[in-house]
């Protein structure tokens, strides 16, 4: 009798990592990998029956035929990044050649693998925020190659933005970039986390970032997702904010066939400020899903959430924003808004704000709007001599402007403005 072994989707997916050599990893990290692998044994890929994944089908992602690339040297590319500090990852591996640093006192900015050798904070906190029951996060914990590490010491004010460039330059690449950012008490820093894909087909980036914003620290992250047209990305940010701190994230999803963002702020101290902003100008058959979760655990927190979509062609947008206000979290102000412009009959949007409030003295609101470009405004502008294309561009720009205004890094602001200008000038 023949014995047949049926491989599950999960087994097939995990087999991509069979040949990757993690033997050089530090002990504490190897232990975490083993733990994560254990967890994966018990988990399965979510189906659309799972509430958390209801509107995003991941079949295409998990059935991809991927390869893990080897570390590359001798890449010639002019990244033209407007900063003095940039970590470059190519297909998930740190590129020493392309990265550059301007040594600043009090700021450690390096590859994750370098930090694993020396950073005590990393040793202590690594993988402490990640949700154990999220299979993609666990896969990252188990199989990440490298990533960026940033540690800003107490009261250090970083003026320049720090760039983390995550580049994919080959087809069918699977990578698990892993970032760790720790901003100490009273410190202030800004990061640009950008994914670019110079190849064309079928890659999957499964990125996880752990972010600690300590007491009275201020941290801003600008996330630009410029995947290839038929590539996939799942990005998870796990954030904790201590008392009196400010955290801001601006997510710009410009390209990618399926992009899913899991943004979880599981712990907010007293008197915190949180800004979650997003802009997704979509075209083709793009599918973008922004899931945010905010837990107000302590009093006097304030959160502002603003997500805006410009939905072209047959694109799909999903917004699911959950705000949970614990009964201890009195005087919480939580505002959430999701607005979408639908440019065609075939674009769709699923918007689901969720507020769960257990404190009585709070101000919370959420709103969700979906509509077309204002025809009256369009006509008004054209009647004053603006071409149809410019009039549309002007209105799209205006729609996006309040998200763009949130960007605290000028170069990013310019980049996104230019993207909108370039992409909406020509639409008919």
């Amino acid at each position, binding site marked *: 009798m023949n014995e047949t072994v049926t491989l599950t989707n999960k087994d097939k997916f995990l087999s991509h990592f069979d040949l990757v050599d993690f033997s050089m990893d530090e002990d504490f990290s190897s232990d975490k990998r083993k733990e994560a692998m254990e967890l994966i044994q018990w988990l399965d890929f979510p189906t659309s029956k799972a509430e958390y994944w209801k509107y995003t089908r991941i079949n295409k992602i998990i059935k991809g035929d991927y390869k893990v690339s080897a570390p590359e040297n001798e890449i010639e590319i002019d990244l033209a990044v407007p900063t003095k500090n940039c970590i470059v990852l190519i297909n998930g591996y740190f590129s020493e050649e392309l990265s550059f640093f301007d040594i600043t006192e009090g700021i450690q900015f390096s590859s994750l693998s370098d930090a694993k050798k020396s950073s005590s904070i990393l040793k202590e906190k690594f993988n402490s925020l990640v949700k154990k029951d999220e299979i993609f996060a666990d896969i990252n914990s188990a199989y990440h190659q490298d990533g960026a590490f940033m540690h800003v010491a107490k009261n250090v004010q970083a003026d320049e933005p720090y760039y983390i460039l995550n580049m994919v330059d080959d087809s069918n690449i699977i990578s698990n970039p892993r970032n760790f950012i720790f901003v100490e008490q009273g410190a202030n820093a800004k990061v640009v986390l950008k994914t670019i894909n110079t190849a064309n087909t079928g890659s999957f980036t499964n990125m996880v970032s752990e972010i600690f914003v300590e007491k009275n620290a201020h941290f801003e992250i600008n996330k630009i997702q410029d995947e290839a047209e038929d590539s996939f990305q799942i990005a998870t940010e796990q954030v904790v904010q201590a008392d009196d701190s400010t955290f801001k994230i601006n997510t710009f999803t410009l390209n990618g066939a399926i992009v899913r963002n899991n943004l979880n702020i599981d712990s907010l101290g007293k008197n915190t400020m949180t800004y979650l902003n997003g802009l997704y100008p979509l075209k083709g058959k793009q599918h973008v899903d922004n899931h945010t979760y905010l837990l107000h655990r302590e009093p006097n927190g304030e959160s502002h959430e603003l997500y805006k979509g410009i939905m072209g062609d047959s694109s799909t947008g999903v917004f699911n924003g959950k705000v949970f206000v614990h009964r201890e979290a009195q005087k919480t102000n939580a505002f959430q808004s999701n607005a979408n412009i639908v440019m065609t009959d075939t674009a769709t949007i699923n918007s689901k704000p969720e507020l769960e409030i257990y404190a009585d003295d709070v101000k919370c609101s959420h709103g969700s709007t979906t509509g077309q470009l204002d025809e009256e405004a369009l006509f*008004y*502008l*054209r*009647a*004053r*001599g*603006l071409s*149809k294309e410019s009039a549309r561009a002007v209105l799209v*720009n205006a729609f996006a402007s309040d998200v763009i205004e949130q960007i605290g890094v000028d170069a990013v602001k310019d980049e996104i403005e230019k993207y909108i200008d370039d992409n909406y000038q020509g639409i008919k």
Partner: protein
Amino acid sequence: MIKIENLHASIEGTEILTGINLEVKAGEVHAIMGPNGSGKSTLANVLAGRDEYEVTEGSVDFLGEDLLDMEPEDRSRAGLFLAFQYPVEIPGVSNINFLKTAINEAREKRGEDPMPAKDFLKRVKEKSKLVELDGRLANRSVNEGFSGGEKKRNEIFQMAMLDPKLAVLDETDSGLDIDALRIVANGVNELKTKDNASIVITHYQRLLDYIVPDFVHVLYQGKIVKTGPKELALELEERGYDWIIKELEEVTA
């Protein structure tokens, strides 16, 4: 300047304009009056190129060109300006920036270089002064949060910036207090030359004290049913429209 012949237009199958004939020559001011719903704004919007209205018959010649065949922006670039009865608010779009784009796109179409920033700003200053539009309003988002009167002034400001050959003012006087009315009228008069013309839609004779028309037309049920000298406006104000409607009925009876 403009010659409208037998113009019929409908919206969602209902005919609103039922055969308009009107010629306006350079240097002239024409007033159009008429009861609510008679089709005044419809005429203005059809001229400006609003595509909700379907032109079913007739023709419009504007400076030798077939106006009805042109896109709204080309009509504007050719020198047609409509001051809207209800100017829309456009949050996030700067009044000044969009005018700059409009002016420069028109120049580009004519093969001219963009207007130097200095000249543009000088013009903004000059023209906002003309309509006594607060400089801060000029810089704000288009009409956003403007009072009714401010919106109307902003329309005249934009008209001054664009320097049209034919201006159609749709009830620009409605909702204006007497000072604002004077300011708007002054603006219009200042811009008047022997080479341009205007069509002034209004319900009130008082505007016509300031902007003196060469002709007054009465629009009723989508047609111009009576045309007269400026005194006709006074008579309409005193006697209303009933006597004209009666006259009409007697003719058709």
